[in-house]
């Protein structure tokens, strides 16, 4: 029984982490940042340099 809970907890954490990651990645870019910090503009490629 406890086993299932642990599993559920682990999975839940990973899902929450994934959601937070996506939110952090996409939402700040909605704000019109003036200029950005040089190469890490979040407007393009959402930061990862596209392929």
């Amino acid at each position, binding site marked *: 029984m406890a086993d299932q809970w642990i599993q559920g907890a682990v999975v839940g954490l990973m899902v929450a982490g994934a959601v937070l990651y996506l939110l952090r990645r996409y939402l700040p870019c909605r704000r019109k940042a003036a200029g950005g910090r040089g190469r890490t503009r979040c407007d*393009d490629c959402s930061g990862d340099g*596209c392929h």
Partner: protein
Amino acid sequence: MSQSVLHFALVGNPNCGKTALFNCLTGAKAKVANYAGVTVEKRSGPLAGLSRPAELIDLPGTYSLYVASPDEQVARRVILGEMDGEAQPDVLVAVVDATNIKLGLRLVLELKALGRPMILVLNLADEARRRGIRIHAELLAERLGMPVVETVAVRRQGVTGLLAALDTLAANVQVRSGRLGLPARGEAVESLYARIDTVLAECVEAPEFTPRWQDKLDALAMHPVLGLVILAAILLLMFQAVFAWAAPLMDGIEALVSWLGEWAGALLPPGILHDFVVDGLIAGMGSVLVFLPQIIILFAFILALEDSGYLPRAAFLLDRMMRGVGLSGRSFIPLLSSFACAVPGIMSTRSIPNPHERLITIMTAPLMTCSARLPVYALVIGAFVPQRPVWGLFNLQGLTLFCLYVAGIASAALVAWTARRQRGKSESFPLLLELPNYRWPNLYHFLLGLKERAWIFLRRVGTIILALSIVLWFLATFPGAPEDATLPAIEYSFAGMLGKFMQPLFEPLGFSWQMCIALIPAMAAREVAVSTLATVYAIGGGDAALGVSLAHSWSLPVALAYLAWFVYAPQCLSTIAVVRRETNSVRATLVFTAYLFALAYVAALLVRHLAALWT
């Protein structure tokens, strides 16, 4: 002596090897986030090896401070301190191609008139020596009034000497504040060149010739007919390589992934963790990871072509034809790189001075089949198109893929042509394209570039695709099926609900709700459509390979309609964002998005009905 950070800027003509020098000096620590070979954004990184903290900025190539196309303006604005958020450079490091000294020195003299501390770097010194060009550096330094250093950036030669010279300069520089105005053109171009001629006569011995092999190569590559044939052959080879040569590697990765899935599946006790790992993580990432070989091969070609100096020849050959549809020969390079990813392709359209041509190029770049579409195409084609040989040489699958690529290009031409007719006659713009010397791509540089691209792809899989796969798995698993469930569990999940909600919109296209739901995460990364389908069908019940599941669930006309959708739909949020940034117009971006979605819908509709008639 204050220890504030000193800012150095690399300035020079395009193709002089500034970027290679930048990589040497910063130890390649600065992240390259866009298209290698054409610097359109300033890049900066820490400059190590000096006695005080320093920052180095790599500026886009420019020919002049006075007349500047959009991409050159970035360099000008940074130098003059007009760029927001970017410190005005304290020291200018002027890089000149030693084999093209006359052209490079004119900019140097213009920069000198600004009165800032400067140093001249003669790059490609080895190539110059090979051609018999002898430069008396000390005399040149005296005549120009600035230190002169010779380097071979791609071999890291001369870099220590350069750092020493920079250090000496740094010791005497005060950090200035306040903007630097661009002085009115104090000296006419003619008199600048007259001065240059005098200096060169004293300091440089240059036989007036290009190595014979360059000219021979150009006689072929730029021949009006043969040149085009060669270009077509190169593109065909590239295409063939990406699809044929990658196959065994892809099979290898696929085998690895499914082995991993089985191993994990056996290792973990049945339960939610098991499902998460096997159906969410491994299915999701694995289905995209398998395309790494294709991406690498595609980039290998693009990098080699860029480094070799061939691409401007292609632009030259295609210019007249492209003007016929409202584009420019210069559009070729952005469009070619859009085959990898439209985002850097669109950014490199800054090299197109004509605003109309540039806008059309931006609007049509996403129609070039980007590498993110590959997994989707490959999946659907693999599932629905039989592996039959055609004409003994090609196979039907490869041919179908080729047709999809051609469809993208043909549509782009049509769209461009329509836009041009609407616009009517407009002013001419010059081409004035430099055709740089051919160079043997430097192996180290090439491998570094490939490694970087592979890493960017893997990072993309490990971050955004992973995150999306996880979220998707969650949406597809919860809430679970109720007690009296008759349909597969997935139909009761959030994903199922969302998919069914969207489905009526796509009813005329025949898309199932699973196909619809795959479109949503595809907005972040098109490849994730594949992961989504993998997850959704895996959870839906079945160990069968994804292709097989699809073949059972979809009809051929609908599958083809799905492909047609992907050819046109501006699925990628990043692309939309960069269009907005580069056009500086929300209206243009909305028009762009709307027209592409409309095209996608109509195309999918047509394909579905036509295919249904035919089969």
